[in-house]
Structures are given as structure tokens and as C-alpha cells.
């Protein structure tokens, strides 16, 4: 008996030890990187005057996972002797909760569009000293002054992306140009179990709303009910709601079509370093009914102890050659217009083909906005997931 109890205790201890990890995102997550990044720029001459005596030894960068090329952090350390310590999160809400609590210890965070607005309202961001950001001029003026920070008082565009449909051209030789490929159940029945939608309570109902010819931000109850009915009818035909490893599953053929971010689609096409090889048959489209545009931004925290160093680091990230190397690595779109010519031809071709805003698709792109009425999407999503 004693022996048995001993065993039981040991077993439970081991079990607890093994179960400790939280799930967060999957391994091979949505970002990640291509391999053939161009060599980093050779000079720091464009960075204006930096008073090295004011630099701190370390800088704490709270970022999405795999959302920065580690090589550029090393280069920053070489040039300035500042070690950038990266900690990661998987959702804006996660990050906001930490920052709100105060004394997070981080210097720079990367909120998406609506989260910048939240940070501005709650006075969590430090007003930028633009005189220190001499590389600001490289940013595409079209992307500045968005609704969430009209003066760019606290936020600097970092990377942006689109949300649309990624599909395998071998399965769709005629091409795909409409959300009907995801929502018309008669069509979808032909490839049921081989398509996925994002696990996201705004993007996914948003896609249904687009199919219905409405705005992503429509909260009229009748429209939401229609969108909800579409999603419920679609659910049994789905492989999964997935925001984590759509890139791999498209590349491996597990999915033939997916509601996806542009960067995910680019990774599925080009591969992700030595993690998996790409499938050149994958392509990405903003359907004729429209899609989403979103942007992640650098914000220095109000209580950042290293605000000076943070400005120097952001100015470094704004160097065209650094921005290009980073965008090449993570697969998303750089808002740095002078960085675009420095990208590889392959990536530039994909940008032109609609993996980035173009003259062809720009009018169909919409920002997801959050206000008091949009909490209706939480209920909608709970109903869909509970059905």
C-alpha cells in the first residue's frame, strides 16, 4: 500500500511537471521567415547624431513571436553596444493587459492598429520625439496618419499585412476571386475538410460580412445574423478554424484553400527557412467583395526607462536596408517605401501580384475598427463556436 501511494505521488508530480506549459500558439507559427535576406546596410551615417553616453545597456522589446529578424538585433548590438531583449506575445489583449498593469519593464511594444488607439486613449504610449527619428522620411506617407493615430504622435508603422484567400492553383486552375469559394456550400462541398478559416472573432465574421456585401465593421443585428448563419452552415465543411499553422498546412496540401494573412500565404509559397519547403502552386488574392488591411506599429511605453535608446532603435529599424532585411525575413509588408527597391525581385513580384496593397486591390481593403458596438462580435463568435 505504501509503495502504491509512493508511486501515485511520483506519477502525479511528473504529470504536473509535464503539463506546465501553456499552449499559446503552435510551433512554426504564422510569421517566420524566408532565408535569402540581403546583406544589411554598411553604414550608420544616416542615423543623425547619437549621444552614446545616453544609451542604456539593454532594451526590452515586447513583440509578436518571430516578428523580427534576429540578425538585425545583432547588428544593432554591434553598432551601439545595446543588447535588445525580445519577449513575445500572441494577442494584443495579452500585451495590453501586461502594459496596463504598469511597470512591465518593456520599452517598446508592437500593437496592431486598433490597439494603438486603446493605448492612446489610456495614455500608455510616450509621445515620440520626431527630431530623433531622422529616417522617418522613408515611410510611405500613404500609411501615416491612420485613424488610430492621426498625427502619429505615439506610433511608428512597423509591418503591415492583408487578409484574404490563399489557395492552391492546382486545385483551382480557374483561379478564385470571390468569398463564394469559402461560403457557397454547394461549391465548398467539393473540397470539404480541406479548407480553413482564421480562428479570429473579427476576421472570420468579417469575411462573411464581406461576402454579403457589407462592411467588416457592420454591427446591424440583421446583418450579423446573416453572417452568423453563413458561418454555421460553413462550419461542418471546414477542416478547422486555424490561425496558427495555415502556412504549413497549405504547403503540405492538407488544405487547398484558406482564409489567411498575406504573410502566411507568402510563407506557404516560399517555405519557411529549413522548417518546411514552400509550394509554388499557392497564391493569394483579395476577393472581389473585399478584404482586410492591418498594420502593426512600434510604440514606446510611457513608463519606459530607456526612452532615448528606444528612439535610437526605432530610427535604426527605419533605415531602408534594415527594414528590407526584416520584411524579407518575416514575410509581411514593409511600410518603408525606400526599402521596397532593396527587396529581392521575388518578393517584389509577389507584392505586385497582390500580396501587398496595389492599385488593383487598394479600394477593396478595409481596416477593422473597434468601438462599443463591436463587442457584438464576441457573442456572434461564441454562438458559432457553440453550435
Amino acid at each position, binding site marked *: *500500500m505504501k509503495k502504491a501511494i509512493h508511486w501515485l505521488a*511520483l*506519477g*502525479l508530480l511528473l504529470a504536473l511537471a*509535464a503539463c506546465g506549459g501553456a499552449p499559446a500558439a503552435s510551433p512554426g507559427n504564422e510569421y517566420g521567415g524566408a532565408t535569402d535576406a540581403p546583406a544589411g546596410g554598411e553604414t550608420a551615417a544616416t542615423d543623425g547624431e547619437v549621444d552614446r553616453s545616453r544609451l542604456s545597456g539593454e532594451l526590452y522589446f515586447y513583440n509578436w513571436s518571430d516578428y523580427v529578424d534576429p540578425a538585425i538585433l545583432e547588428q544593432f548590438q554591434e553598432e551601439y553596444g545595446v543588447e535588445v531583449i525580445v519577449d513575445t506575445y500572441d494577442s494584443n*489583449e495579452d500585451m495590453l493587459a501586461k502594459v496596463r498593469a504598469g511597470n512591465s519593464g518593456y520599452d517598446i511594444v508592437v500593437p496592431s492598429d486598433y490597439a494603438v488607439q*486603446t493605448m492612446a486613449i489610456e495614455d500608455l504610449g510616450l509621445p515620440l520625439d520626431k527630431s530623433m527619428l531622422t529616417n522617418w522620411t522613408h515611410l510611405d506617407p500613404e500609411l501615416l496618419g491612420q485613424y488610430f493615430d492621426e498625427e502619429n504622435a505615439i506610433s511608428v508603422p512597423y509591418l503591415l499585412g492583408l487578409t484574404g484567400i490563399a489557395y492552391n492553383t492546382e486545385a483551382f486552375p480557374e483561379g478564385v476571386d470571390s468569398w463564394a469559394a469559402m461560403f457557397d456550400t454547394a461549391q465548398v462541398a467539393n473540397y470539404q475538410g480541406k479548407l480553413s478559416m482564421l480562428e479570429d472573432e473579427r476576421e472570420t465574421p468579417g469575411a462573411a460580412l464581406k461576402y454579403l456585401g457589407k462592411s467588416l465593421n457592420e454591427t446591424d443585428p440583421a446583418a450579423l445574423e446573416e453572417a452568423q448563419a453563413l458561418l454555421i452552415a460553413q462550419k461542418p465543411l471546414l477542416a478547422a478554424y486555424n490561425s496558427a499553422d495555415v502556412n504549413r498546412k497549405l504547403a503540405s496540401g492538407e488544405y487547398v484553400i484558406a482564409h489567411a494573412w498575406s504573410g502566411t500565404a507568402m510563407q506557404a509559397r516560399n517555405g519557411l527557412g529549413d522548417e518546411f519547403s514552400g509550394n509554388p502552386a499557392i497564391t493569394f488574392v483579395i476577393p472581389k467583395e473585399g478584404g482586410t488591411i492591418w498594420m502593426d506599429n512600434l510604440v514606446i511605453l510611457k513608463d519606459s526607462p530607456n526612452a532615448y535608446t528606444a528612439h535610437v532603435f526605432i530610427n535604426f529599424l527605419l533605415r531602408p536596408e534594415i527594414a528590407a532585411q526584416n520584411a524579407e525575413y518575416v514575410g509581411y509588408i514593409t511600410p518603408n517605401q525606400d526599402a521596397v527597391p532593396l527587396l529581392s525581385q521575388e518578393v517584389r513580384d509577389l507584392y505586385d501580384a497582390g500580396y501587398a496593397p496595389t492599385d488593383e486591390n487598394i479600394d477593396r481593403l478595409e481596416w477593422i475598427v473597434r468601438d462599443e458596438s463591436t*463587442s457584438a462580435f464576441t457573442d456572434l463568435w461564441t454562438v458559432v*463556436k*457553440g453550435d
Partner: protein
Amino acid sequence: MALNPAQDELQRRERVRLAGLLAPGLLWLILFFALPLVVILIYSFMTNGPRGNVVFQPTLANYITLFTKSIYVNAYLRSIWASLLTTLICLLLGYPLALFIVRQPARWRTPLLFLILIPFWTNFLVRIYAWQIILANNGLINSSLDALGLPTITLLNTEGATLLGLVYGELPFMVLPLYAAIDRFDFTLLEAAADLGASRWRAFLRVMLPMTMPGVAAGSVLVFIPTLGQFVVSELLGGAKVDYLGNLIQRLFLRSNPPDWPLGSAMAMVMMLVLLVLILFYFRATTEDDR
């Protein structure tokens, strides 16, 4: 009534010693268990702000929402049902397994128990991903079927896959307490029952099962509780198509736009209440058995 001074001093020392022994544990419990719980309890009565910021405005609205909106009531029922099913399957698989191990020669028992524990050496998430590879459309099972010229079947991203993952993960928690209980059981009692004319089934149901009931109860509680809060398995093996309680609470805290900590806290509190009731049942059941 008055004790002599020497005895008094002895008792005082005893009390100090006892307090000294209990203090670290108590402090730990208060700091890391009671306090966070109180915070969640307080949050569950607060109002959610427009941007997911908790506003200190007492309200019962969260609890009213949970008990009146069918989407939440259904989430509870669905989760309780899935946990019951998992517990039952674990019991049906675990009991014969524990019995088998107990009946082996002593030198085999330790290695066999060891085998039950080995999966714990690998992180649970990694093992669940391994199941994805086994069950996927172009996974191990389906590519084998395909190679044999048989039709393939959809295994991954079904409720069956979720249940499989839950049972797989929790089975050892059922086997270990059952092993302890069955190991304690005196098998000559079965012979006595047979001598008195009981069939094998009857002897099991009337003698062995009641005497190993504490193990059954302990195993069931150990399986049921973590299953009720599980959110990884349905996400990774069920295709995230159905929300269980764990998924819903996680989403309300971290994914919703805006997040709703007060509602998530209320949800967690109600879940704890459900579990508390079950544990009370368990204690009553086991103590009556010992009487």
C-alpha cells in the same frame, strides 16, 4: 482546571512548534492560492469597460449573463458532458489495465507502471501534435490506408479526435489510483465469494468493486477536474470548431476584442463551484466506504 506551570510550558511549546511547522505552508497557500482566487472573485462582480479595462463598479450582470444566455449555459453542459464521457471511458479502460498490472509477478509491476508514466516525460502539447500527425488527412493512418488501396477517413478535426486526445491525456491519472486501490485488495476474498456460490461477475460487483471504490472515486475526480478546464485538445485535435469551458474562458481573457475579464472570472468561479460540489460528493462517498 489549572495545569501546573511545567505542563503549561510544555503545551505552549507544542503550540509554537505546530505554528512554526504550519506557517510556511499556510503562507504559501494564502499568497498563491487564496489571494489570486479572491482577485478573481472580485473581478467577477466588476463591470467590463469599453476597451476591456476592468471598471470597479459592482454588478451581478456577469452571473446573470452566464445563467440566462443559452450560449453560456450550453457551454457548461457541453463541457460537463465531455468530461463525464472522458471519465467513463478512462474508467472502462483503466480498471482492467490496473487489475492486469496488479496481477503480474512483482518484478514486472514496477516496469509496467513505469511504462504508464513514460508519456509524462514529454510535454503534453508535443504529444498532441504527434496525434495530429497520426490522424491528419495525409497522416500516418490515412497514408497507410491509401497505400493498401483502402478508402481514407476523416479523423482529425472531429469531436471523436477531441475525445481521443482527452482520454489519451488523462488515462494515467485513472490507472495510478486504481492500481493503488486494487493492490490493497485481498484477492482471497474472491475465492471466499466463489466458495459461497457467487459467480465471477457477482463477486466482482459485490466484493471487489465496492472495496476498490476509493480508487475509482479518486481516479474519476483526477480525470474529471482537469478535463473540465482543458482547452488545448479541442483546439488542436478538434479543429477549434467547438468551444469548451476552457476555450471560452481563455478567449474571454486573451482573445476577445475587447476582452471581458469580469465575465471570464465569473465563468471560472462557477466552474470552480461545480467542481467543489463534485469533490464534496467524492469525500462523502469515500468516507462512507471507510466506515
